């Protein structure tokens, strides 16, 4: 055995029981954790989709119209709905974690968690409203 055994850094192979790749299906909290981690895939998807849209916009009206037609296909509508659900999950879990990640003090007293998390939601609604207003009304 000594010939075959090798250590990867931080992960000694001896005395480790093999764990299934599906370990997280055993408990709802684990499922939630894995889904939360997977939100990053949809974050990247949308960042790249938006970049693609900007490139189409740069190439001219025809290329842009072609891109918009692509967004209307059932495939993209379906993926966008799934992506929106995951992105919202990211937003909610991210905001709810801020009191844990960041302790805010005011006059020496710790600001209660619901207020720290809640202020994120207030700013979120405001920012979303401004963006929506610019893209629907502000450009006329």
């Amino acid at each position: 055995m000594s010939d075959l055994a090798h250590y990867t850094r931080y992960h000694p192979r001896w005395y480790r029981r093999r764990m299934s790749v599906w370990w997280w299906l055993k408990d709802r909290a684990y499922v939630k954790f894995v889904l939360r981690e997977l939100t990053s895939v949809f974050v990247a998807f949308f960042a790249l989709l938006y970049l693609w849209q900007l490139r189409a916009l740069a190439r001219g009206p025809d290329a842009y119209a072609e891109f918009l037609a692509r967004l209307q296909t059932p495939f993209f509508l379906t993926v966008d709905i799934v992506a929106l659900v995951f992105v919202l999950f990211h937003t909610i879990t991210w905001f709810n974690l801020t009191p844990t990640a960041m302790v805010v003090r005011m006059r020496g007293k710790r600001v209660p968690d619901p207020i720290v998390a809640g202020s994120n939601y207030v700013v979120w609604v405001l920012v979303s409203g401004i963006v929506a207003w610019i893209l629907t009304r502000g450009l006329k």
Partner: protein
Amino acid sequence: MSGRFTPLMWTLFSVGGTVAAFLFPVHLFLNGLAFPLGWLDAPSYDALLSLVQHPITRLYLFVMIALPLFHWAHRFRYTLYDGLQLYHLTVFIAVLCYGVALVGTAVAAYTLWNFA
């Protein structure tokens, strides 16, 4: 990973995550659903073009694309590493994830810089 790299990536992860949390839902809802399905009127090509040509809009779009890509790279790296137990591929996964984010950032910078 070396001493300075990982803290930098954690910072980009958290800033990018915050940018995505605040801005992505509204943009994804408008561009992915409300405009394609005709719930709301999409801006015309010319109106959108003149908006994007403004330097502040371009800076906004660069931040909105680049930072969330690094958020993804850092989080997905650990998702692959822990979730799929790919312990022997640590370096390969890191290079792949941060590499994709870097290429995306470069393309975004190039595209937005040339939007004149």
